[in-house]
């Protein structure tokens, strides 16, 4: 990447308001400049044209009144006297004149010849009417006029006499300079004055933009019923209307999605409810099946089949119960049954009930008490410890630690296993997230951690997962010690 685009980027103002004002000022400045330039050009041309035209008219008038007095072939004295008379008639214009006949020398009124550009004589020699040339002499603009004189009796044929005049345009130049100053004086105040309408216009344009922004923000924060008050017919009003249409569509879509989700959840709840009764009948006889399978009275295959049916029935029961539990959370039907308990005892019972005492290390502050729902906390702990034991492998240490931190009870379950893959970590509490591909189906419904997280939430607490710096997964359950 080159540096220039970044520099350019930095030079372009960030805010829309600043950009609008700057653009407006640029346009105003350009407009003022163009108007001033145009006016200047026109005025300058008018001034110079008038100077030229009056000079030619005056010169022609003078020559017209003096030429008839000249002889047909004027001598140098005649030409000098003509120039002298013309110089005098020039008056305030202060031109210097000279006359020439045919290819004869220029004859000025007196002394030095008038200042003339070189090519003028060439141009004048073949001309039938006045030739004008502007030129600079000693840094001052001059105007030179060459006027071929015709005779009254033969106007179509040049007499050979040409009168030259040149004069300084300094006065006109001063006028033009004054004009430039005036144009600048007129254009410059336009810029600060233009700031006011620019700000007003920017505000007018930006108000709907700001409205749009705050509306979009409140939409983003979930208020899908946000609408904009649209006034007028301009593009911004169109944008506002489009926004409203979008919001309405979004709101309708969200409502549809919610309804669909609610239906899906109700369906899951209904299905698990319906499954429960046949499962209750089947569960009641799993014991009978177990006894017969173990009795040795049946042939091997029948025994195995009975064992399979009994085992899978128990798994199915666990899955349906998990599904029903999560349905109760979804329906808001889960209730806390709070009890004051000794935390060390609670952890000990969780381990003892599942014969985990020898496999799990515990570190619980003695005498630590908390008010919580023991059944739900047992569900959480059993899930976390069970996961740790499964994922860590048989020889990996699993440690449960419980402490009071302020008004919270903080329980951590850490294992020395491989930890949780980074890409799985954000989803460990999602429903049906499998910790790793190697997990077999027999290890649960896929709802265990989701139910654990819901149980923590129901207590007004949190359940978080992380990887320890030294390796291994750490789950942290934080519960209020005494939920009001």
């Amino acid at each position, binding site marked *: 990447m080159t540096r220039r685009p970044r520099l350019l980027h930095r030079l372009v103002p960030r805010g829309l308001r600043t950009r609008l004002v700057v653009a407006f000022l640029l346009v105003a400045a350009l407009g003022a400049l163009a108007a001033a330039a145009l006016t200047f050009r026109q005025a300058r041309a008018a001034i110079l044209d008038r100077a030229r035209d009056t000079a030619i008219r005056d010169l022609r008038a003078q020559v017209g009144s003096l030429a008839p007095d000249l002889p047909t072939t004027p001598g140098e004295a005649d030409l000098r006297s003509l120039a002298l008379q013309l110089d005098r008639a020039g008056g305030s214009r202060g031109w210097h004149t000279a006359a020439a006949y045919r290819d004869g020398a220029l004859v000025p009124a007196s002394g030095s010849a008038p200042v003339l550009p070189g090519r003028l004589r060439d141009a004048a020699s073949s001309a039938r009417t006045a030739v004008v040339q502007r030129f600079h002499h000693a840094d001052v603009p001059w105007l030179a006029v060459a006027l071929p004189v015709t005779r009254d009796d033969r106007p179509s044929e040049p007499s050979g006499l040409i009168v030259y005049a040149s004069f300084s345009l300094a006065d006109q130049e001063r006028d033009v300079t004054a004009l430039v100053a005036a144009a600048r004086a007129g254009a410059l105040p336009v810029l600060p004055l233009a700031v006011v309408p620019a700000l007003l216009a920017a505000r007018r344009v930006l108000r709907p933009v700001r409205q749009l922004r705050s509306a979009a923000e409140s939409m983003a924060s979930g208020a899908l019923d946000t609408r904009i008050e649209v006034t007028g017919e301009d593009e911004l009003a169109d944008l506002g209307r489009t926004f409203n249409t979008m919001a309405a569509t979004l709101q309708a879509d969200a409502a549809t999605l919610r309804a669909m989700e609610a239906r899906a959840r109700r369906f899951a709840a209904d299905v698990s409810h319906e499954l*429960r009764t046949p499962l209750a*009948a089947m569960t*009641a006889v*799993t014991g009978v099946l177990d006894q017969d399978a173990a009795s040795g009275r049946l042939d091997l295959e029948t025994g195995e089949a009975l064992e399979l049916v009994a085992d899978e029935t128990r798994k199915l029961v666990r899955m349906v119960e998990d599904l029903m539990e999560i349905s109760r959370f979804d329906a808001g039907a889960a*209730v806390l049954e709070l009890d004051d308990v000794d935390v060390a005892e609670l952890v000990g*019972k969780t381990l003892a009930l599942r014969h985990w005492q020898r496999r799990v290390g515990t570190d619980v502050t003695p005498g630590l008490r908390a008010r919580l729902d*023991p059944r739900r906390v*047992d569900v959480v702990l059993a899930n976390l410890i069970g996961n740790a034991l499964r994922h860590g492998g048989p020889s990996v240490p699993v440690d449960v630690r419980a402490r009071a931190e302020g008004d919270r009870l903080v329980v951590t379950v850490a294992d020395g296993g491989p930890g949780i893959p980074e890409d799985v970590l954000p989803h460990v509490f999602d429903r049906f997230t499998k910790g790793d591909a190697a997990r077999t189906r027999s290890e649960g419904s896929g709802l265990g951690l989701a139910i654990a997280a819901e149980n923590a939430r129901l207590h007004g607490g949190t359940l978080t997962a992380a990887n320890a710096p030294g390796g291994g997964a750490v789950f942290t359950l934080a519960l209020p010690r005494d939920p009001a």
Partner: protein
Amino acid sequence: MTRVLLIEDDPAVRRGVTLGLRRNGHETEAVGTGEDGLESLAPFAPDIVLLDLMLPGMSGLEVCRRVRESSQVPIVILSARGDDIDVVVGLEAGADDYIVKPASSELIEARMRAVLRRVAPSQPAPGPGGGPVLLGDLEIDEAAVRVCRNGHELTLAPSELKLLLFLSASPGTTFSRRQLLEEVWEHSYYADARLVDACVKRLRAKVEDDQRNPRYVQTVRGFGYRFGPL
């Protein structure tokens, strides 16, 4: 062998539970409605009643109340989790214990056995010389499993009697609800403690003069219950 009256409306569950009970050597009568259950109560004379709460016609709760009007036979509620409120009402109506369906025959067997045990297993068996003990107005005869109040014998449901015997064996000692669940009901530590609360409520109604200011079964806030001190 135990005589079991099973009141359960779903035929499959009824068959399954009956099969399990018979396999475990119990004589079982299974009926589908509360009305039929009440009718067979006198002729069958069960040792224990397993009662489903969700019944067509007369509700399980009503059956529970009617049974208690005439009999202190142990009643165990068969319920599904999620019918929590019904369980509490059922327990307050006089049931001694509950089983959450789906339940295996082993679990049903264990629950039945616990309910049928007349004293808590951890309690030392009363010695031959242990006659009735007088505690306040209560005369508790552990050996005869009998409680009299002001000379009149109280009709206590099995769980009420067991709880009172357990608490009064160590007057002044506080037991947590979890302990009582484990000791008296032989449930797990995590069972529903409302089982204890409902039984305490029923017991107080029978032994206390002023239920709101109990003398025998006292609440120790934040810890549990204790007997006395008188």
